[in-house]
């Protein structure tokens, strides 16, 4: 395959890049939306440009979608670093001890419910869930989005982020905890814990 690609004219390689990128656009946009929110379109534009500039690295069509996502994730990280927003400093206290399941059981926000935990989740619209995700620090949000929302394996995410697998697994675990903790806070702040609010 590499020998074939080495002999491939640049124009043909660019055309292959264009085909793959065109097919992947919706997926790239959805991933970027979950990581950088309103800057998603700009992040995908960055990704297309960087992908085009690195088109020499595009050798194997089957690996091309993951290659593009890797570029996109790095573009998103660049944007998040430039933002220096306070949301990155969101307090995540006592993460390891936090359990949303136990918190709901203990606080019992819907005393007349016989499916308390599921009723809690039902209070969240899709948009609420997305807002909660955007509260997570980048190093938790990115693995959570890629693995739990877009079906990548932790091993693939480790390659994308140039991070050891153990680091990604740890961030996934803490990212889940952070997501649960922020769900509870979001529900409290947005009045989702009052029965019949929606």
């Amino acid at each position, binding site marked *: 395959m590499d020998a074939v690609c080495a002999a491939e004219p640049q*124009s043909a390689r*660019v*055309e292959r890049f*264009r085909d793959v*990128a*065109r097919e992947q*656009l*919706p997926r790239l*946009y*959805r991933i970027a*939306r*979950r990581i950088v929110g309103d800057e998603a*379109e700009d992040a*995908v*534009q960055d990704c*297309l*440009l960087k992908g*085009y500039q690195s088109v020499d690295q595009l050798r194997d069509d089957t690996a091309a979608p993951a290659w593009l996502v890797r570029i996109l994730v790095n573009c998103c990280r660049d944007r998040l670093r430039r933002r220096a927003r306070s949301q990155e400093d969101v307090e995540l206290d006592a993460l390891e001890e936090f*359990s*949303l*399941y136990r918190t709901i059981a203990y606080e019992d926000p819907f005393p007349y419910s016989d499916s308390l*935990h*599921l009723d809690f*989740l039902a209070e*969240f619209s*899709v948009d609420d*869930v*997305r807002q909660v*995700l955007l509260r997570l620090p980048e190093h938790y949000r990115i693995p*959570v*989005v890629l693995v*739990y*929302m*877009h079906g990548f*394996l*932790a091993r693939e995410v480790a390659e994308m982020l140039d991070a050891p697998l153990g680091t990604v697994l740890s961030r*996934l*675990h803490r990212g*889940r905890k952070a*997501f*649960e903790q922020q769900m509870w806070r979001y529900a409290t702040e947005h009045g989702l814990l009052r029965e019949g609010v929606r």
Partner: protein
Amino acid sequence: MISCAEAVRRLWEYIDDVVDASERALIETHLARCRRCCGELEFAHELRRTLTDAAQEDVPDDVLRRLRHTLEELER
């Protein structure tokens, strides 16, 4: 038998089927005897689904059009 804390820590990996056979057996043995952790498992399933559902989103036509245009504009 593993503790509740150990079982709960591995629930999402269990749901995603990325635990090895011996870990799976340990978790299932625990779940067979622990009603509270079965509740945690059901909740983890739903929370996992909540996240997956939030990934689905229609891409606005104008955004898609602009991104396709960018692609076409890249030098041939």
